[in-house]
């Protein structure tokens, strides 16, 4: 067992659980933040993407014991950070279908725009490696470009 203190969406949390518990399940089962999704458990699909100390990580690969002092943002906290614009575009452009992957997509897109404020197609393709089974990729790409103010 490990007792670990870290920040989630600006709020200090202490979680006492098995040290190898992935952040994904810490968020979902221990903190009730179910916006972060389980998709594959092996860092393939990106549905569990959150921000750790400002950068996108796949939370299924981050064990609780490594989280001491970390500053985390999840989809529930994205609007308060800088996600409002992306979230509004996701609605306006009717991006999600089933929506299950979209929390991870938004967290990844937000970090992409932080690193590349005017991303090229290749940069978007390389960075947005999350899986969407419904096939919303063209809309995600279009929404990212509109958010960045680059031509569609």
């Amino acid at each position, binding site marked *: 067992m490990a007792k670990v203190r870290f920040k989630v969406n600006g709020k200090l949390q202490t979680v006492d659980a098995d040290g190898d518990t992935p952040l994904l399940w810490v968020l979902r089962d221990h903190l009730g933040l179910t916006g972060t999704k389980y998709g594959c458990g092996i860092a393939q699909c990106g549905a569990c993407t959150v921000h750790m100390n400002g950068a996108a990580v796949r939370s299924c690969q981050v064990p609780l014991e490594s989280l001491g002092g970390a500053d985390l943002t999840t989809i529930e906290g994205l609007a308060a950070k800088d996600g409002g614009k992306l979230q509004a575009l996701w*609605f306006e452009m009717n991006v999600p279908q089933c929506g299950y992957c979209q929390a991870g997509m938004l967290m990844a897109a937000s970090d992409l725009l932080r690193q590349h404020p005017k991303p090229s197609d290749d940069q978007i393709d390389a960075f947005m490696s999350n899986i969407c089974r419904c096939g919303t990729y063209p809309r995600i790409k279009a929404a990212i470009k509109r958010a960045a103010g680059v031509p569609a």
Partner: protein
Amino acid sequence: MSAGSIDRRGFLVTTAVVGGGMALGLSAQAAVQGAQSVPWGPDAAFGAEFSPWIEIAPDDVITVRVPTPECGNGAMSQAAMNVAEELDCDWSKLRVAFASYARDFAEKGVYNTGFLSFFSGHSTSKLRLQKTLQLGASARERLKMAAAARWGVPASEITTRNSVLTHSPTGRKLRYGEVAAEAAKAGLLAEPELKPQGQWTLLGKKSPPKLNIPDITHGSAVYGIDVKLPGMVHAALMQCPVHGGKLKRHDPAKVLKMPGVRAVVVIDPANTAGAKGKTASTFGFADSLCQSGVAVIADHYWQAHKALAALPVEWDFGAGAQWQDAEAIYTAARARRDLGRGQVIRKLGDVGAATGKRLVEGDYATPYGENAALEPLNATALITADSAEVWAPTQDMSQAFWVTVDETGLPPDKVTLHQTFIGGAYGRRGQGDDVRMAVAVARQFPGKPVKVIWSREETFRQGRYRTPVVTKMHAVLDDATGLPQAVSGDVGYAGSRALFQMPLGFSDMPWFNNGVIPNVRLTSSAVPVNVLNGAFRGPCYNSHAFVVESFIDECSQVAGIDPLAYRLKLLAGWDKSWSDCLRSAAKGIGWGKALPRGEGLGIAISCWPVANARNSGTVVACAARVSVSKAGDIKVVQLDTAFDCGRIANADAVRAQIEGATLFGMSLCLGEELTIKEGMIAETNFDQYPIARMADCPQVNVHFDALSGHERLEIIGEAAVGPVQPAIGNAISAATGKRLRQTPFRKADLRWD
């Protein structure tokens, strides 16, 4: 409320607190957010009920309760849009909620309309559309009656707009919410006439985004896996990895002391209690039979998952272990097919009488495939001695409800089912095997809600897969025209279940039915195997479209006629919209332009669900531009799709479905294949089963100019999965000269120099 059941208000409060401020029946918040959807139907009532479908609150928030769940196709929002068309209400204050199947049962079918009432789609089918429009019109007239009574004027002097009633002669106004309570009690002497389609102002005119998107983008939409209940425990499940096998031995003592572990339970199909009376499930129970397995129940999912991995388990694999690999199954299917004893499913003229000199022959195949919804299978169940309550991301509430009745043996009035949002389905969540397994686990841990989660690996291993198809096609071309004078086609299915051996997209193609090919003989056979197959977005159609349209392309090549022109000849006497679709897609892709070596164009057409009737189904033509590198890597550069579903209710929702289904089909034919090793599915995660990603995405263009305007508003979720696959295959043939007769294409050697 039965003993042991959750106190509902307790549940709502808990969820609201933990879930971060969902508007659970709080009308003020709902009004602000405009789009809240809560998964417990009529219990969230907060206004005046006009019908089981419609509730109007004092603050003008209108709730539409929808029996068809939301799996991404916009079915719920569409139902609300239908109601709003006649109700003349303020769209920004409209919310949707899930109808309750328990209520439908208690009130004898109040939500039951048309084909597959509780299945996730079909929201614009004729009966459903008419019913939802009528509900809106009826509520509107009752609001008018209530306002007329208040003002003491004839209802005919009152107009409605944007949730406001106006007395035209005096200009007096009332909001819907102000008279809702009285209006809900008013009775109409006769149901009002519906507007003619030409006067619609919302349907076909506007494209509002899905109502649940704000919940999705803020992480507050509740999918099945997100359900939270007081006292809930978590279970990790493992069913016999060879379908039909049985648990032989396990050693719970090895894991019972691990942190958080509460119990290890065995799931035995012999313990299915069986429904005691008549049932009304949508699909019957044959595709949701209980599977032998074992589950670990723990405080948290990760603890259960770890303990299950550590649990020593031995299986009796049974007859399924005979299949060394998938190829053995396909070989058996071909052998059965080639016995020549298949059932004749289409016969026209006499194929033996054809005399042309040019023959075309091909043996095609598509493999097992996994639906791979991104939300792994799961359901939550609370079972007591005399009640069952289930929360599930089911694609069909009726099915999930009756499966629960069947597994527990409880009377239906003791069973409650709560619909949640669905993290993808594509047919996988219709039969209710997931719900049955969750109930079977929870029955052994009574009095506590048990959330049962299939790991991704378990979801892969316990699929109800795309039915594999092996099809031999043979044509004799007419010496003069080059069109087929005779076509023989023999399809062989590998599959456990006859329900998923569908001929759609094969024997119903117009040219096999309308005499343009005078001699046709198509047969169907199947080899039963233990590997469970099921519904997969456009079941079997998703394979047949590839076979038929690759074969027609081969015929055009042998005839020496341009593939587009060839199809236009075949369709010359058929609905013009088919040709329009082909022309539109061809125009979009730049058909006929010269391309460098290694690049090619391909085209194909198909229709779901019914192709051999006039003005029927959704016709989709797809044109593909593909480049193949010297190393043999395939890049789909552009896809142009044109379609005809008659008319459309929400253009952007339709566009989204066509885009998504096109990319779904592209992913399927490029990379997706399940193989088998000693009776078990070998691929168990996305690293082994490649699904198309952003970098695989071509330019996708969807064209609306082939829409016929016919009065049907046909379903559009499946059709586009079909033609994209042969379009890409045909383009590869054009680019490389190599004809690929089986998918996935990325497993073929396409190197050139």
